[in-house]
């Protein structure tokens, strides 16, 4: 028999599996088509071009209620990416600090950090999100509290940041002699000022990297390393600051007008709550990863490096960090992915990310469950796969190259 002959066994099993799988999918698709036909719906994506007719209050690109469902989904996708990027940045900073403090010799500090980690890790993220939302709404001052001769509340950071129970207002960067916006195919506007600034800054970084390579070359041939740090600071900061001055950079501060603040960048409570909750929750996990990574480098490495005559700072930079990073990065990637996936819980507090637009209001308005949910899953899958492939590429670069 085919199954008992080791030459054909694996082929037979695979053919059976493929046939079974195809039958299963055929059954699913057949059921789906039958069910949709009895509901009087076909499968079509044309609803994406219909006007969305709902409003999205927190958005990065131009959007009105007359825009299409497709554009609403893109606005939602950008909101997802925004909160994921903000969250990853803050979570990394917090996680690294907490992870290092957890190893501190200071008894109070290390115990408190342990308490932080346990409290945040062992309570569901959804509870943290609604909890932070409640904190923002219930405990922060109303905009009206900022008014009057003796206001109960005042702005932070030299009167520039207003933290109210309706949201946070931060200064908006503006350019008085700006280059204007570039219309990209009628889809969105790209700020030329921002583009120029990024270009100049990156050019400065590259020039500084060349300078470092030159210094290294000189050190290798002559044994003396030229002092370059002030040139590097000048190369990076100089052109950028000059460009800022040329463009007429200034900040527009939030102002209290009527019942609310105007001007400045307005971050809604839902965005802030989601951002803080995701960051604090993920920071607890990152802290444990950082701690484990540092502890994974054996003490012999430090001692060997000291016995070679390296100073503590060089030991940290050249010996411990490269080895710890190798342990830290793979789990860190999966924490970033978890944070991005957890951002889908925005729907619980009304932040309009892609789950709230495509998987929420668009789905309910058009009644296209199948298309909306499958599209939503595809979008998240693409985000996850692209983040993990970029990070895996980076990981393979820093990995130990075994001969």
């Amino acid at each position, binding site marked *: 028999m085919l*199954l*008992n002959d080791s030459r054909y066994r*694996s082929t037979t*099993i*695979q053919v059976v*599996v*493929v046939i079974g*799988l195809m039958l299963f999918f055929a059954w*699913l698709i057949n*059921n*789906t088509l*039958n*069910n*949709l036909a*009895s509901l009087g719906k076909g499968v079509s994506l044309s609803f994406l071009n219909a006007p969305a007719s709902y409003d999205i209050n927190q958005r990065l690109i131009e959007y009105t209620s007359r825009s299409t469902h497709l554009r609403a989904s893109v606005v939602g996708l950008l909101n997802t990416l925004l909160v994921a990027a903000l969250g990853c940045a803050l979570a990394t900073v917090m996680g690294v600090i907490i992870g290092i*403090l957890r190893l*501190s*010799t*200071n*008894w*109070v*500090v290390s115990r*408190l950090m342990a308490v932080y980690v*346990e*409290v945040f*890790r*062992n*309570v*569901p*993220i*959804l*509870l943290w999100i*609604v*909890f932070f939302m*409640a904190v923002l709404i*219930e405990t922060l001052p109303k905009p009206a509290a900022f008014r009057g001769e003796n206001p109960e509340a005042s702005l932070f950071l030299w009167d520039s940041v207003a933290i109210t129970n309706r949201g946070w207002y931060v200064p908006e960067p503006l350019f008085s002699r700006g280059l204007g916006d570039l219309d990209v195919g009628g889809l969105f506007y790209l700020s030329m000022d921002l583009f120029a600034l990024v270009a100049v800054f990156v050019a400065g970084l590259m020039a500084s990297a060349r300078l470092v390579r030159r210094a290294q070359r000189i050190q290798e041939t002559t044994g003396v390393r030229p002092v370059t740090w002030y040139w590097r600071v000048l190369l990076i900061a100089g052109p950028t600051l000059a460009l800022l001055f040329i463009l007429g950079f200034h900040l527009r501060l939030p102002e209290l007008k009527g019942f609310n603040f105007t001007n400045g960048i307005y971050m809604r409570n839902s965005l802030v709550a989601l951002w803080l909750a995701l960051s604090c929750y993920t920071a607890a996990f990152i802290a444990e990863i950082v701690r484990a990574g540092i502890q994974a480098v054996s003490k012999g490495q430090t001692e060997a490096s000291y016995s070679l005559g390296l100073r503590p700072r060089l030991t940290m930079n050249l010996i411990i960090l490269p080895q710890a990073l190798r342990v830290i990065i793979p789990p860190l990637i999966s924490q970033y992915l978890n944070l991005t*996936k*957890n951002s*889908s*819980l925005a*729907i*619980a507090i009304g932040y309009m990310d892609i*789950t709230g637009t495509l*998987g929420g209001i668009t789905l309910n308005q058009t009644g296209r*469950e*199948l298309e909306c*949910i499958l599209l*939503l*899953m595809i979008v*998240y*899958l693409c985000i*996850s*796969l692209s983040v993990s492939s970029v990070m895996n590429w980076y990981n393979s670069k820093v990995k130990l190259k075994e001969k």
Partner: protein
Amino acid sequence: MGQSGFVRKTMVPAAAPPMLEGTVIGWLRANLFNSWLNSALSVVFVTAVAYLLWQFIPWAFKSSWTANSLVECRQQIKAGFGEDVSGACWAVIRERYLQLIYGFYPADLYWRPNLTFVLMLIALAPVLFPTVSRKLLLFSCMYPFLGYWLLWGGSIWGVALVVAELALAFYLLSPLTARFGLLITIVGVVLATVLWWLFAVAPLQSLFHGILPLGLRAVPSNQFGGFTLSTIIGVTGIVASLPLGILWALGRRSDMLIVRSISVGFIELIRGVPLITLLFVASTLLNIFLPPGTSFDIILRVVIVVTLFSSGYVAEVIRGGLAALPVGQYEASDALGLDYWKSMRLVVLPQALKISIPGIVSSFIGLFKDTTLVSIIGLLDPLGLSNAIRADSAWNGIVWELYVFIAVMFFAFCFAMSRYSMHLERRLETGH
């Protein structure tokens, strides 16, 4: 040359220990104030904690336990502790804690979830603690059916018929395998089981029930809620996802290209999308995928989806365990002439699973926390119930007390689990 060194001839008298050694001040100086940075950190952190406690403790203790609405609560606190005190209204917990634990389960039947929970601990004991008798494992195998019957009630015959068929299949497994080979037997048994469930159980159940009506009062799914619901979804999800996860992990390491690609595709799909999208699939799409006219219980649908979700994560944990096993173990079992399933069952999996137990426990903690997501698709888990309680006019506007209670319950459970996992890691440590 003679006198070149100094040799002490007499003992030096023992000195008293340093004055601060062993005292509180000495400890403080060594641990909290041994450098200026540490001193600053200590001061900042102690101040911050003191401030938080200063805010929290009066709120928590200048509270009301007896009121029947939020308004009454505030009046009681004002009357008891002064005009401008705002204390906690723990009365909402006193009034609703049963609801937060059992949902809308009929109050006279609370013994059933309680008994199910206690029996669950007994069923888990032989798995969790090696000192417990192995004979209890038979009970553990029976437990899922018993638990289902206790929770949902209804006629005992349905469950009995299912168990009878499975027991028969298990009993016949080895003679059938000897006759037809493993693969065909397994396919046959699975097919027979599915057919039995689909076509034979319902008519036979009504027949037997007509002859001998034995059963418990049926409780419909929409009365389940609270921590009972979270525990049902979490425990069923992780238990059912274990065998599935093992299969996916073996599939991912298989030599067969197609089996491997299917496993990789499934695992990456599951791990690439958020649980909430899969819950949307459960709540809206599953009925579209199944034959017209089928509609089954929402809790069952959620459990199926949660099981698939968690099997993807468990598979990766077990794959780690399989990869950590020295390749000599695989080669040794091959050299003994064991076939694939025997070598997996007798040599590889026992060791690989042992390595992956801590990872499995932590994915269970994750799954248990993720059960709160079902509140988004309208099930009444503790978080969903907290919204329902707030919708009641008597408790409209209450926030912190409910969150604190739910958070403490989750914390207690998850913290205990993570401590147990650490204990396991130490116990299973076979290195030096």
